[in-house]
């Protein structure tokens, strides 16, 4: 009994170490004074200072945040409608096609999504002159397209466990459709919409491949910038940037977990 317990514990401990040692090493080295990433030159905050002065990085971060907020919001609206429709409207023309289109982006290799959207944008600008220049707008469109699939999945799984009788009662009592929707349906699926939004936001902030294809010369998102820098190896200011992002995400995720725990 005991023997098996310790064996499992060892593997699990090893697994967690595997998950966290790389992240911690980035955090530790971001405070390293030495320009050589490998040598420990004492504690320093100089890379954070140079990060704050780096307008290229700050500009890219701002652009990425804007794209992420807009695309996550639109994707949440679209994904929620699609998820609701697939759950509530029993049969309609084009249902199979919709199911296919809303689940495929989940498993589609990013690189193919990127190439095919670029082809679309080129074809469209040939035909109707839009989009003239590729950049923030085309990246946002691409991100909405793949994020709404994730939102729809989350919303559908929430609806699968929900009770429709409340809505029906409200309808029977003469509630107007829109009123019932905002008073009853939205609160029911709100947790799913929030986690869908967060998922879409994170996916957008993280995307390198699709953005590289559909962006133009003018727009560089933060992940694109990081990717072009780290292709050449480790740089101390990216360590600092990574640490900031890791800290923000960790605080957010832990706070969300605590909030959920308090509610239940």
């Amino acid at each position, binding site marked *: 009994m005991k023997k*098996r317990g310790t064996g*499992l*514990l060892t*593997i*699990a401990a090893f*697994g*967690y170490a*595997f*998950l*966290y*040692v*790389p992240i911690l*090493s*980035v955090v530790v080295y971001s405070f390293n004074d030495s320009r050589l990433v*490998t040598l420990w030159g004492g504690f320093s905050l100089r890379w954070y200072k140079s990060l704050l002065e780096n307008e290229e990085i700050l500009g890219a971060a701002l652009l990425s945040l804007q794209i992420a907020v807009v695309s996550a919001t639109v994707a949440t609206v*679209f994904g929620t*409608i*699609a998820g*609701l*429709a697939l759950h*509530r*409207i029993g049969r309609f023309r*084009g249902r199979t096609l919709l199911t296919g*289109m*809303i689940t*495929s*982006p989940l*498993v589609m*290799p*990013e*690189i*193919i999504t990127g*190439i*095919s*959207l670029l*082809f*679309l944008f080129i*074809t469209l600008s040939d035909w109707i002159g839009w989009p003239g220049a590729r950049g923030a707008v085309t990246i946002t469109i*691409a991100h*909405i*397209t793949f994020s*709404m699939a994730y939102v729809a999945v989350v919303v559908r799984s929430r609806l699968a466990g929900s009770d429709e009788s409340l809505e*029906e009662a409200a*309808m029977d009592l003469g509630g107007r*459709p*829109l009123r*019932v929707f905002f008073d009853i349906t939205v609160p029911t699926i709100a947790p799913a919409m929030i986690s869908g939004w967060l998922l879409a936001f*994170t996916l957008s902030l*993280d995307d390198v*491949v699709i953005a590289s294809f559909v962006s133009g010369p003018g727009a560089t998102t933060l992940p694109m910038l*990081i*990717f072009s820098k*780290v292709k050449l*190896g*480790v740089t101390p200011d990216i360590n600092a940037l*990574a640490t900031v*992002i890791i800290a923000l*995400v960790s605080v957010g*995720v832990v706070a969300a*977990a605590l909030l959920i725990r308090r509610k239940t």
Partner: protein
Amino acid sequence: MVRDGRRRWLRRALLVPYAWLLLFFLAPFLIILKISVADPVVALPPFTALFDWAASGWDRIQATFDNYLFLFQDRYYATIYLSSIKTAAISTFLCLLIGYPMAYFIARQPPHRRGLLLLGIILPFWISFLLRVYAWIGLLNTNGVINNLLQWLGLIDQPLSLIYNDFAVYIGIVYSYLPFMILPLYANLERLDSSLLEAAADLGARRWRTFVDVTLPLSRPGIIAGSLLVFIPAIGEFIIPALLGGSDTLMIGRALWDEFFINRDWPVASAVSVVLLMILVLPMMWFQKVQGREVEDSR
């Protein structure tokens, strides 16, 4: 009657995301199919005007399957596809080897402890994928953390070449996709009926026997779902081979990127994409089937 009103409202609202998906998901897909059978020409965009097709008639099609013929005749592409499948398969197996005991461990903990342990699995998933792959560059570099540590301990004289090879790609994939393996496995193992295990124990089965005969077969849906969630994205992976792989690392995602951005042969790149999708169709359909059954079981 009233309910119909709401349905009508939802139907109308649905038109917007529906049109959006038709335009930005289905249409691009059809375009890539068309370009894959187009002639390359040196121009921007570097492919023949596809939509002249309708005018010039279907007789042109015969000549333009050249892109696919090229893929099948060229050994280079066959090797890359096979090597991508191999890399994805080995990484998936390694993920399962690490992920299964971890999922089992978490599922066997008292409920109040499970939440925290699961949070520990999910947290890395929310931290940028790119930055997590980047973290390994610092660890594996010739003068990186691991080599420094081993040299300081006196275990090695010369730094090991840990990065820019297939080994680093395996580590990168296993590391990045481990949560995708653990979560479905955990969801499955957590639901496992413990009375079955007790029955097996009461009947005198050894622990290992119980595991092989009861737990393992019952967790099959979790194993399949987790494995496909790792395998499918790993085949088309670009960032990991680009950052951790060597010049001889053959992965289709990277070859596709080079074909597109460096060779600028868009028709061949499109044909490569279409073949990649055809390879992925089977595992994708399998995944949807497994998922569909899971949803029904949990109801």
